[in-house]
């Protein structure tokens, strides 16, 4: 699965995207793997929303290998 990081999350991960191997996952599985790869992300978990293939998803979302998942920290456009 392709993972995208934005804004200050890139300062934590030191990258704009990464590939996360693994098949069917729920949001908890995903966060576990994310925090394993980048422990610094844990602090932001509460404030970050997830988007799957360019759409916000809730806590009940499931992800597959083919999905593009973005971590969306609080936005500040305009």
């Amino acid at each position, binding site marked *: 699965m392709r993972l*995208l990081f*934005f*804004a200050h999350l890139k300062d934590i991960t030191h990258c704009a995207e990464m590939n996360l191997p693994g098949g069917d996952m729920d949001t908890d599985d995903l966060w576990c793997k994310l925090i394993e790869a980048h422990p610094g992300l844990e602090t932001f978990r509460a404030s970050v929303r997830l*988007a799957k293939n*360019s*759409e*916000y998803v809730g806590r009940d979302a499931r992800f597959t290998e083919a999905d593009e998942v*973005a971590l*969306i*920290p609080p*936005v*500040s*456009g*305009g």
Partner: protein
Amino acid sequence: MEIEIQLTDTPIAAYLSAPTSGVGAGAWVEFRGLVRGEENGGVIAALEYEAYSPMAETEMRRIITELASGQPCLFVRAIHRIGIVPVGEAAIYIGIAGRHRAEAFALLAGFMDRLKQDVPIWKRRALTATELAELKIK
């Protein structure tokens, strides 16, 4: 309703024409969100914006479509600038044509509120005059 969405890394034009298709339009409202010379109390020269591009465009379109179901308008154009935006220039532009002003004003205010909640665009950092000058030399 016609919707035009754009993310751009070049300055937003000072003049953007009203839609010619809006024959029934009684209201044409435009808003520019300008970069102010201060951020968190400090003097700045520019802001750098970053976007999750395809999703930012999709979200803007979705928000406009949703709001327009309650506030039907004729035409909406929304442009957000990304990259470095110097003080005084527009980071966002929105132009709305409606039959009457009420729905155009409501759509404008609603869009700006939702933009600042849901559209994946970030003020990445504030630049001082020195930082902006250095960037231009590079």
